[in-house]
């Protein structure tokens, strides 16, 4: 069976030979044109006049388009139609696309785009969250507030109180392949678009609007991305729409890719944030009440900021049972790039808030932070969190066929039919379950948003990890080192992750698949998920091969295509294999059942005795090679093509009240990191990281470990070297890898041990696996808190380290703790 095997990525051989094809590698069609945007030179104000004559006169230029030249919708927003493709006279950030150059080469387009004469009238721009608060510049009418109990009262009556704040920077995705699109005009005004996107349906929708045609006139294909990380959920809309519109106007294929500097300057990044906190706790460090204020900088357009800020609130508890909590979230509108999805989708920001509280409280009490964390953990699930008992060895059959009235999936019923809504985007407005989401039963431990925590396994994970990495012994050795070394100080931190799995816009938790079995027994596999390097295609192919009992060589993985599987959700929220794996399983099982029925009839036996394994189909005492069985079925006039569909059960969520069950389940993990800092320069090094992570019953342990190692390093990068700097005019000064520093090879921990928790999802997911895309990102917090620990060894004060902890911030914090502030 192909499940649970550490098989290589399906395209590994294509990757290493350079044969894997990305959008910009598709051979240029004859007469292909290339596009570039002309960008706003100011952050806020009006373009009083725009002289495009030099642009039009530049070599190779075929056309130059402004907002007024667009034939239909001028909008690339994934939410509230507040993001024009081209700005028109008013601009909202420095780098906003103002006009579009269509030229005979990429270089000609780039050169021409710089030749425009701008006359601008700047107005006072809003850059930071304080300016935005003063100006009441925000999305939604006011802050979102969710409460559990009376946190203020609990804190006021607590024996100990800490308060403070932490600021954390944004993060550039730095997918190695920049944004790219290619539009091929078809007969009758139709359009085919090849896009580097996590959300082909969204591209299809926005292109259709821009061309003024129904979605059936647009087909979007995505074979692979060179990295996405959330940055290609909505940020590719502009390129695809630009290509499609230019292709419509010129009648020629049009291609666009952003030069790296343009990609930095135009596209959104992770939301930076300030979190203010006040927490009350007892002498043992048990939290009695916690209050958070989240100030989330969203940039100029709404994009996906509301669900991002929601998810920050949803992770304000991380792994900790807070008896009383109040979370207030401000979504602030500023004249900067529109912040967007990035691995974790707000979760990391919210989680870092509570981890700071834990660290700060431990410092006040003089307790080991790990001990304090464990005292605040949710209670372990029954059975100590080891494998939840399975009904049988077999995975659940066709959940998609179950249609229980009143289950979560029906929440999508009363959605407005307004076709202007971006129903397939996370930026869409969700429906609220009628009568609100049902409350968790009394006496059950709940999150601050009222969801029962039934699958908590971090006590077991933490205990096992602390043992395997010798936390206690190394804690003592770190103290010894610090007693002996005045200049270089060590720090150690073990931090947990509990991450909620599901789109919080419940109706997005659905997926489709299309599977064909050909008469030669080869299998064509298609589903709505996209491949960005995470190994989704391989995992899903393993599911398909397992359902038919054949080897993977029989399964052809094909590009995501809106013409094959419609109405897909973004490959996001770590949902790819959960959703698409189940949809593919349903499709495969439909065909398998048809073949079984046909063979059973031939053998005058019951279809339930037909087995698919070892590349053969066994029926009665006989067996057929799979290809022979497929041929027989074809000759017996049996349909060998099927769709599959899945929707996640049990979800009920009211985001306004902050109540319900937004997540099907939680994924867990923990990391322990040791660092050394230089108290003279602030330089530091990650010395060792040990990780134990929960991927349920892993579909592919090699791919999952890859997600964990990579997620950790990316998360550590966010909190250490990756610093975005804007100048006083709102110009992003860190706009290329020369100035923006993602981790390089030697930045990974010197010793790096990663293991999977032996477990199994208690919920009925595909082969009882768990989502693994985002959760490991937050393991990077252990590096940040280890740095804080090292700084704390330098003096009596609390480090109050901000992120990213560049050498400069570490040095500042050292000086703070020495002063005892």
């Amino acid at each position, binding site marked *: 069976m192909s499940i649970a095997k550490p098989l*290589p*990525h399906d*395209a*590994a051989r294509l*990757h*290493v*030979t*350079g*044969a894997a094809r990305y959008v*910009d*590698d598709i*051979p240029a069609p004859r007469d292909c044109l290339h596009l570039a945007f002309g960008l706003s030179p100011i952050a806020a104000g009006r373009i009083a006049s725009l002289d495009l004559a030099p642009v039009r006169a530049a070599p190779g230029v075929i056309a130059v388009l402004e907002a007024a030249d667009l034939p239909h919708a001028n909008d690339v927003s994934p939410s509230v139609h507040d993001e024009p493709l081209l700005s028109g006279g008013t601009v909202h950030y420095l780098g906003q696309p103002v006009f579009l150059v269509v030229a005979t080469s990429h*270089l000609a387009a780039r050169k021409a785009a*710089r030749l425009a004469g701008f006359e601008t009238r700047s107005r006072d721009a809003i850059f930071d969250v304080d300016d935005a608060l003063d100006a009441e510049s925000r999305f939604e009418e006011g802050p979102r507030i969710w409460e559990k109990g009376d946190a203020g009262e609990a804190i006021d009556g607590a024996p100990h109180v800490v308060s403070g704040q932490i600021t954390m920077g944004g993060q550039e995705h*730095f997918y*190695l*392949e920049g944004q790219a699109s290619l539009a091929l005009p078809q007969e009758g005004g139709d359009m085919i678009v090849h896009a580097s996107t996590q959300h082909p349906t969204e591209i299809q929708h926005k292109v259709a609007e821009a061309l003024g045609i129904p979605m059936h006139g647009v087909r979007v294909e995505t074979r692979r*991305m*060179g*990295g*996405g*990380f959330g940055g290609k959920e909505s940020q590719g809309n502009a390129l695809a729409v630009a290509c499609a519109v230019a292709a419509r106007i010129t009648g020629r294929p049009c291609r666009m890719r952003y*030069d*790296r500097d343009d990609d930095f300057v135009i596209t959104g990044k992770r939301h930076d944030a300030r979190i203010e906190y006040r927490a009350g706790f007892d002498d043992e460090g048990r939290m009695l009440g916690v209050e958070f204020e989240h100030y989330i900088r969203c940039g100029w357009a709404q994009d996906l900021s509301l669900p991002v800020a929601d998810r920050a609130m949803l992770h304000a508890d991380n792994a900790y049972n807070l008896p009383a909590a109040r979370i207030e979230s401000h979504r602030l509108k500023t004249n900067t790039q529109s912040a967007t999805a990035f691995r974790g989708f707000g979760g990391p920001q919210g989680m870092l808030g509570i981890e700071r509280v834990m660290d700060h409280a431990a410092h006040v009490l003089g307790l080991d932070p790990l001990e304090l964390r464990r005292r605040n953990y949710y209670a372990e699930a029954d059975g100590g969190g080891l494998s939840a008992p399975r009904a049988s060895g077999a995975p659940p059959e066709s959940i998609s066929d179950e249609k229980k009235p009143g289950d979560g999936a029906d929440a999508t019923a009363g959605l407005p039919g307004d076709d202007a809504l971006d129903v397939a985007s996370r930026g869409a407005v969700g429906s609220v379950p009628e009568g609100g989401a049902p409350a968790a039963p009394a006496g059950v431990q709940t999150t601050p948003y009222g969801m029962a925590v039934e699958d908590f396994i971090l006590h077991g994970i933490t205990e096992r990890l602390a043992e395997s990495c010798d936390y206690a012994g190394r804690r003592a050795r770190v103290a010894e080192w610090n007693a002996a070394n*005045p200049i*270089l100080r060590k720090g150690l931190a073990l931090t947990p992750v509990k991450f909620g799995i599901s789109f919080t816009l419940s109706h997005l938790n659905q997926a489709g698949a299309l599977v064909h079995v050909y008469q030669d027994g080869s299998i064509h596999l298609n589903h709505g998920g996209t491949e960005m*390097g*995470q190994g989704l295609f391989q995992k899903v192919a393993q599911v398909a091969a397992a359902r038919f009992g054949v080897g993977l060589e029989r399964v052809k993985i094909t590009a995501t295509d809106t013409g094959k599987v419609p109405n897909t959700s973004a490959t996001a929220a770590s949902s790819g294999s959960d959703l698409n794996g189940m949809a593919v399983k349903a499709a495969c099982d439909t065909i398998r059942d048809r073949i079984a029925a046909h063979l059973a009839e031939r053998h005058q036996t019951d279809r339930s005795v037909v087995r698919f394994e070892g590349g053969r189909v066994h029926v009665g005492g006989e067996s057929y090679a799979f290809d022979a069985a497929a041929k027989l079925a074809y000759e017996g006039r049996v349909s060998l093509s099927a769709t599959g569909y899945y929707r996640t059960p049990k979800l009920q969520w009211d985001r306004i009240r902050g109540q319900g069950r937004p997540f099907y389940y939680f994924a867990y993990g923990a990391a322990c990191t040791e660092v*050394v*800092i*230089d108290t*003279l*320069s*602030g*330089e530091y*090094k990650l*010395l060792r990281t040990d990780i134990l992570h929960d991927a349920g019953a892993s579909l592919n342990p090699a791919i999952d*470990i*890859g997600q964990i*190692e*990579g*997620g*950790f*390093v*990316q998360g550590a990068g966010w909190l250490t*070297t990756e*610093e975005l700097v804007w100048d006083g005019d709102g110009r992003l*000064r860190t706009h*290329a*890898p*020369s*100035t923006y520093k993602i*981790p*390089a*090879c*030697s*930045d990974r921990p*010197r010793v790096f041990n990663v293991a999977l928790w032996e477990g199994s999802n208690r919920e009925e997911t595909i082969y009882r696996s768990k989502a693994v895309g985002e959760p490991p990102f937050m393991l990077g917090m252990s590096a940040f808190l280890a740095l804080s620990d090292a700084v704390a060894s330098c003096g009596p004060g609390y480090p109050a380290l901000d992120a990213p902890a560049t*050498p*400069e911030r570490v040095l500042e914090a050292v000086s703070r703790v020495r002063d005892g502030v």
Partner: protein
Amino acid sequence: MDIDFLLNGERITLRDAAATQTLLDWLRLDRGLCGTKEGCNEGDCGACTVMVTDEDGPRALNACILFLPQLHGKAVRTVEGISGPDGALHPVQQAMIDRHGSQCGFCTPGFVVAMATAHARGDRGHDDALAGNLCRCTGYAPIVRAAEDAADAPVPAWMRDAALPSVEAARYAPATLEALLEETAARPEATLIAGATDVGLWVTKDLRDLDDVIFLNRCADLQRIEDDGERLRIGAGVTMDRVHRLMVEHHPDYAEMIRRYGSAQVRAAATIGGNIANGSPIGDNPPALIALGAILHLAHRDGRREMPIEDFFIDYGKQDLRPGEVVEAISLPARAPRLKVWKLSKRFDQDISAVCGAFDIGVDDEGRVGWARIAFGGMAAIPKRARHVEEALLGVRWGEEAIAAAWEAWERDFQPLSDMRASAGYRLNAARNLLSRYLLEDLGAAVDVLEVAP
């Protein structure tokens, strides 16, 4: 320009090629070889890494800032030429598959070429060989495992190119200093291109058209290193990877800084002369060279000049270089056991310095500072000597009192700026603290985080 080179073993002859056509664009657009990727178009991500072989053997270079004329007489191997003609995989390719070293796959061709080049050179310092290749997916661990796995495998026969093409000297790339000086005297406005690690960005990012250019990489007179036992004389065209090898032996602390200078790809292209001549306040060689008391040698058709290197830097963007004059060489003492060079940046590898400091401080028999040469990059508009600090230190007991004696002098020497790399305050504090680091290291304290084991 007429250019002859080998591409994956095949002889290529280009006639009338544009001076600043990059290898990357030519491969992807003209040859349809799309395995080599564009990640940043400025030499900072390594996705476009190719292997270029000349008389000194194979080296990894960034194709995005490599102009075709620089390839004249060399052999280029792209990812398409790393596997065998029959499709057989190179050991590093197989190891990358086996170790799950690719996820999205976009950086992978660049990694594979960088790994295969290091493999061909027998270089097992994987972290250094791959410091110029960024990966956003894997966290690097599986890639390094793959490099380790492949290290012992023999180099496949197909990786060895036939003889390099013998080529005529081209006017755009003078072969001798004399010919070069004739050209620069005749065309004093021409842009001199050595490794193109800086000029490359004028083309790919500033989108400048450079027609009037002279390539330096074929000028043998600039490539020489001379060592008479007392002093080293390094030709301006010597690439930083050769400077690194030289310094490992002569000035190990300087060598350790060069190990972090750019990346393998950048050090294989960048020249010491280019780093000096472009006058950047954040070039990493000048502080070390100033502290070493290096002499800069300039040449013009009409005569030669030499000067202490610190005198070459006049002001931001302004050097003491006359029309038609070129940097010919740099000479420096062969030994300076008290030299320390420290580079501070957000990231250890391949990052531009926030502060780069070099110190050569001598202590006399009475324990007092007998001499001091201190210089910094990133602290002023030019690479600058800390003369007030040096003066304050002279004759003072080498201990805490020396740090105190120099405390005020730092601000007289330096009024640094704040920018995206660091604030003015950090720069000044850190520079001061580096003097303390020098002292503490003398006293036997551990001061280098890179030497700490878990």
